[in-house]
């Protein structure tokens, strides 16, 4: 028992560095780098299944911001060639500076009814979230040249690490901290392209495939 326990502790000690190294190496080989501003060329060069690392400025937004923007609200910042991240970060203020404590994605499908309008109206180039989005967004992405990036759900600590600093915050008073529009300056933020500017969607494909596979099993 004792031995088993210490053994486990020992394994724990080295897993992090090894994982980090593997991660770093595979990241360097496999990944496409995206930098703000996200130009049409950059966006159109991505296809479903690509792994990307985002650097530069991205804006968080949840339900209230999406509703506001889709209903014709004026964005306080220029979203053209910009990115919206579906995220309600945990941010605290320490010694006069904002620090991000956790910044994982939230479920994107809740914004499905607003997203096409926001892409059209504001010229958005990148959406980041989890779980994918529906038909309306897929079509809007194809029409206006926008991509959906899937971040790893629940990876709040890893993703918070990629935030270098906070550039500013909007709608703090009216929407509250979790729903506010935070400007995050990120470096090498990892994500996977699951909906591209050619109108392809990994989510649609997996849903159809899994449907078929499960139906076969349930026959």
């Amino acid at each position, binding site marked *: 028992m004792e031995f088993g326990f210490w053994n486990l502790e020992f394994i724990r000690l080295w*897993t992090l560095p090894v994982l980090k190294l593997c991660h770093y190496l595979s990241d360097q080989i496999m990944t496409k780098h995206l930098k703000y501003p996200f130009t049409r060329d950059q966006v159109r060069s991505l296809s479903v299944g690509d792994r990307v690392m985002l650097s530069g400025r991205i804006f968080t937004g949840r339900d209230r911001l999406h509703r506001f923007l889709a209903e014709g609200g004026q964005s306080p910042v220029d979203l053209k060639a910009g990115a919206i991240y579906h995220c309600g970060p*945990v941010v605290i203020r320490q010694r006069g500076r904002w620090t991000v404590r956790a910044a994982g994605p939230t479920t994107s499908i809740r914004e499905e009814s607003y997203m096409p309008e926001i892409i059209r109206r504001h010229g958005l180039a990148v959406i980041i979230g989890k779980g994918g989005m529906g038909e309306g967004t897929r079509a809007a992405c194809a029409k206006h040249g926008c991509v959906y990036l899937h971040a790893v759900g629940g990876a*709040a600590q890893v993703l918070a690490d990629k935030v270098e600093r906070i550039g500013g915050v909007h709608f703090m008073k009216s929407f509250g901290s979790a729903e506010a529009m935070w400007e995050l300056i990120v470096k090498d933020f990892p994500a996977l392209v699951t909906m591209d500017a050619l109108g392809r969607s990994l989510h649609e494909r997996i849903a159809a495939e899994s449907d078929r596979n499960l139906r076969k099993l349930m026959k």
Partner: protein
Amino acid sequence: MKSIWQRNILELIRRTSSDLPHDVTAALEKVRRKESASSPARWALDTILENVCLARERGAPLCQDTGTLLFDCRVPVGFDTLALSGAIRCAVRQATRLGYLRQNTIDTLTDKACAGNIGLGTPAIHLEYVRGSRVDIRLIMKGGGSENMSIQYSLPDSRLKAGRDWDGVCRCVLDAVRRAQGNGCAPGVLGIGVGGDRATGAELAKRQLLRRLSDHAADPGLARLEKQILAAANKSGIGPMGCGGRTTLLGVKIGAMSRLPASYFVSVSYMCWAFRRRGVALGTDGCIRRWMY
């Protein structure tokens, strides 16, 4: 009753929110090896494991959604449960202040945040008297993304061709897996309750999540069903985060309960990979005897 109880429960909350139990970490490490190198599934699992390590090192929440809190307490006969509930509530309030828990509770009537995560019915505290001299407190934190994927079926279900038998149960559960796709932050664990009424069935399903990943149902029929559903779900191709792969579920836990002749419910409780579950056994003096899981 305050100090020592509150202190130990606070530590229970801190551990639960920042440190995934061994069985779950081990399961994640195991399935990681099954996914092919440089696949999206492998990438997602690597990121998840890195996140697990980081959270443990920092003592910070694994996921920003610290979820609904369910305290499952077994106390000796004659024990003062009111004082225990009081201590739990104080500990939750303090944990929120210290950032172990996110401000995560909304008053449904006013739409305002409940201070310190204390509201009507929150946190949920289940109490049960047992013979003995120990107070066992188990805590589960369940995030909203995964809870939204939980579902209940009433058999027979003609759309799924599910009758009132094991095959019917299997069909319902696989339908739940199909609907969830990656939205519950797969790979997840399913707690399943068969029987009961709508309320007790749902509770039975959630209670299955208290079991270790490595155990099997005591009933051989249920144990077989658990294995069968797990294997089938992992053949679906949904994969971690729903981006494709060999691992859709880490485990399936089924419990059964008696029912009325007229009804047959199958309740599915979906738990995400951030399966935060811890427990502590305390003496009646409030001192820690041992940690569970």
